[in-house]
Every structure is written in C-alpha cells, then in structure tokens.
C-alpha cells in the first residue's frame, strides 16, 4: 500500500489537485474580501475583532502555499500549512453542522453559494488525505527546486 501511495506520479497528481484548489479558492476570496469577512463571521466562531485579520491574511496563505505546492517548492512545509488549514476548516464545518447553522461555506468565495454540509466535509477530508500523503512521502517530480533530497 505504501509503495502504491508513494508513487511519484500519484503524488504529483495530488500536488496539482491540492495546489490548484487552494490557488482557486484563495483568489476567489481575495476578489471579495468583504464577502469573505461576512462568511467567516457567519460561522460565529471568532471574536468580531479577529474576523477581518483572518479574512485578509488567510486567502493569501492559501494562494502562496498552493503556488509553492504546485511548483514543488518546500512541498512538505506547504502541505503542512494546507493540512492545518483543512483541519481548521473541517472543525468549523463540523461545529456549524452540530449547531444546525445553515450558512454559506465561503470556501470558494461567497458567489458560489455553496452551503456548509456533508459534501464540504468530504471534499476537505479528501484534500487533507492528499496533503498528509505529500507530507509523508514528499513529491519532487517537476519541482523547480529539484536539488531537494528525497527521503
């Protein structure tokens, strides 16, 4: 199983998927900061004074980590950052579902209109699995910094 999962072509596929999803999600959020700030606020998990700080910084972390992942720069580190974000997103979705909140996810900006729900939970869990595998096995294929040693 480990051998299959550490296949370099499979890993680069994971890298591309996770990278693109985060770049896309980040750009949509950056294009509507006020909408994303409202979306975070609707989760009712953060104090009002912190909401905008996250609304401003989080999408840029998503885009930068996504780009680095795509180009194979510090794959493990960027996969780690993405995993932490995904864990936070999963917690936020689970808590909102538990509280019966029927709110916009805000995952891909606010114009997509997708709601918090089981589908979002599965999407995030799948991406989290890919990120874990990238942390574990690394992926240096087609990396622009290919001098990395492969463990």
């Amino acid at each position, binding site marked *: 199983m480990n051998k299959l999962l550490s296949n370099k072509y499979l890993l680069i596929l994971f890298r591309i998927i996770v990278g693109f999803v985060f770049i896309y999600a980040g750009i949509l959020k950056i294009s509507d900061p006020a909408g994303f700030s409202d979306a975070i606020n609707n989760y009712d998990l953060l104090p009002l004074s912190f909401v905008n700080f996250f609304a401003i910084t989080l999408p840029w972390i998503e885009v930068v980590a996504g780009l680095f992942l795509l180009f194979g720069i*510090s794959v493990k580190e960027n996969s780690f950052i993405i995993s932490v974000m995904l*864990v936070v997103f999963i917690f936020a979705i689970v808590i909102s579902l538990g509280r019966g909140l029927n709110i916009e996810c805000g995952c891909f900006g606010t114009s997509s209109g997708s709601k918090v729900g089981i589908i979002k939970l599965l999407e995030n869990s799948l991406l989290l699995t890919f990120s874990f595998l990238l942390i574990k096995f690394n992926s240096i294929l087609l990396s622009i910094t290919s001098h990395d040693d492969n463990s």
Partner: protein
Amino acid sequence: MNIFFVLFFSKEYNIKLKINFTSLLSVIIISSLLGLLINYFNPKGIPFIKEERQLNWAEDSTTSYVTNEIKEDKDKNPSEVFDEAKAITLKQAYALYNRKVLFIDARDYIEYEIGHINNAVSLPYLDFDEYKTILDTIPKSMPIVAYCDGEDCDLSILLGDKLFESGYKEVYIFFGGWIDWQMADYPVEGEDE
C-alpha cells in the same frame, strides 16, 4: 485526529518527516504581510478590525405615514430618502402591518411554512438567488419590512441590506422578528394555526 498530532508533534517524527519550520513560518508570515499590504492599497479592502453593523432606527415620524401605496419620487419629502435600511420596533412594525405594508420573511422556507407573520411572503436570505424572482412582482418604490427569528438572528439585517442594494428605497428591518411578534400575540398564519 490523534494520529495527526502524534505524527507531527512527536520530536522523533519531526526529524523523520524533515519539516523545516523556518520555511513553514516564513511562508505564513510573508503571505500574511502580503495580504495586509495589498488590502491596505486595495480600494475594495476591508478595515483591519471588523465593525459591527450599527442599526439605524427609524423615527416614529418616519413610519407613521408609511402605507403600502407606491409613492412617486416627486411626492416624497427629501428627509424620507433613506441612505440605508432602517430598523423598527415591534410597535412600529405593528403599525406598518396595519397599514398593509409588505413583510418579507428572511428565514428558511420550512420555518416560514411552520408559521409566519400574517400575509408575509417568503424570501430566504440563504437561498436568495433561488427565490429572488418574487422581487419581480414587487415595485422598487414599495416599502418593505424584512424580518427573521429575532434578535439572535441577523438574516433580516442581511436581507434588508441586500434589498436596499438591489434598489428598494424604503426598507425596514424588524429586528424583534418572529419571536417578538408571536409574544405580542399579533396575527400569524402557517401550519401551526
């Protein structure tokens, strides 16, 4: 989830996984600074600290002449021109109800079905795009009252703001909402009736 913490926070694994925390932190710090900088110069940028939506309450003198009749702009007193949706009290809401002003329920359609203010129409804020065709039948110059559950819910404010942005000139937010209305024993309709 335990596996995650064991994997990443045990010293042994950190070494084995070769995660360089310096570059990890650099990515986070540089992207955050980039975000803050760009937001500062972005015309669509947002303030660093989010401000709570301050409700502007309508004066009794404003609501006392409101009817469901469509007023031409020229008939309007300039002081009545709204710069945003205005909040109203239960008493003001009841007065508007008696003058047959249109009430819009911002909650989910299921909640609307169970019970709503008499004659109110449903426009769930969270499914706005799906239900917005109802607005085609409501002229922009008609006064509208948006409400939701009560003080714990902000759908009425969100819907009120959205209606105002979409061109409705006289939008009221009945902040006390369904809970206050029921407590006051005012006319309702729905499955529970």
